[in-house]
């Protein structure tokens, strides 16, 4: 049976809401972009990021809504941060 998903309700709208995920394994490492998750809000994005990118024991992890990122080199090109 095909799964019926209400995109507006369950995925944050017809236009996907992405959160970029940054992490580092120890304080000597720079905070690095490790991927992104799609979620309708920050709480769910936090959980999904933590569970999806669990290949290391991160010392620090944070998420940034894609909409909050100001592009510089790619200004006006409509390109996004690399989505993993």
């Amino acid at each position, binding site marked *: 049976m095909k799964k019926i*998903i209400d995109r507006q309700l369950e995925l944050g709208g017809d236009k996907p809401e992405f959160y970029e995920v940054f992490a580092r394994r120890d304080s000597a490492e720079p905070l690095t972009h490790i991927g992104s*998750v*799609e979620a*309708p809000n920050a*709480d769910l994005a936090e*959980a999904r990021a933590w*569970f999806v990118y669990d290949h290391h024991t991160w010392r620090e992890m944070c998420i940034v809504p894609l909409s909050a990122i100001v592009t510089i080199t790619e200004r006006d090109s409509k390109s996004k941060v690399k989505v993993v």
Partner: protein
Amino acid sequence: MAVIDSIEDLSEADRFLRDELYCIADAKLVLAGWYMMVLQNGRSIADFTSICAMMQGQYGHARALYQHLGRFGVTLEEVEWMRGAKDIRSPKLLDRPPQSWSDFVAAIFMAEQALSTQLSAYRTSLADRTLARLADKILKESRFHLSYSVGWIKALRKDPESTVDEDARRRLVDALDWWGDADQPDVVFSNGYRDKSDSELRDRFLDLVGTTFDVPDGIAGPAKSWQRSIRRNGSPGIPETLFEKIRFKNRELAMP
């Protein structure tokens, strides 16, 4: 450490602690079973991954708590293979299968919040430092389980026809059965294993739930037959149908 051959060898405080840890571990076992059963209802691969991780987390917590029960003479063989539906001490909250995705989200929010609230009172225990460290580790891991359910509650509420608040009210009544009778002696608290009494933890749970849902006054049901050893009213055990879903299906294959 003394070898415990039977429950009669335990002090009164250790008997109560053993019962409470059994209840927490069994709750985690049943909750893990729930995550396993609803996995295919996830909305995306990231959701599948999250549900799998929460399932694995709950099984891991249950295993670690069962192992800690070895201190009280409980063996893993007894815990995992020698018990039936009547012997499982999970909360009434987890007896009723999820009626919808919204009801599932409300139920896991209540269950995760209740278990984390109870375990938070063990973090400072000087009477059992191993248990204190275990509780701390479980709490750190469970934080993301709560983020998951809170995120879904917020997403579901965007729909004016969402039933998540009604589902939560029904589940809250069942969740409070876990702290059924505040008048019974709280030996685990009075002996310093927990740093908060059951009645304080109940209030704390309601405060935490209140940050996400409206909590009506006087929501608790009657507590006439509440038993501390199983932390619920009524008869011990879980429904046979639920046990059939969560039990090992082949004991021979499961034996090491």
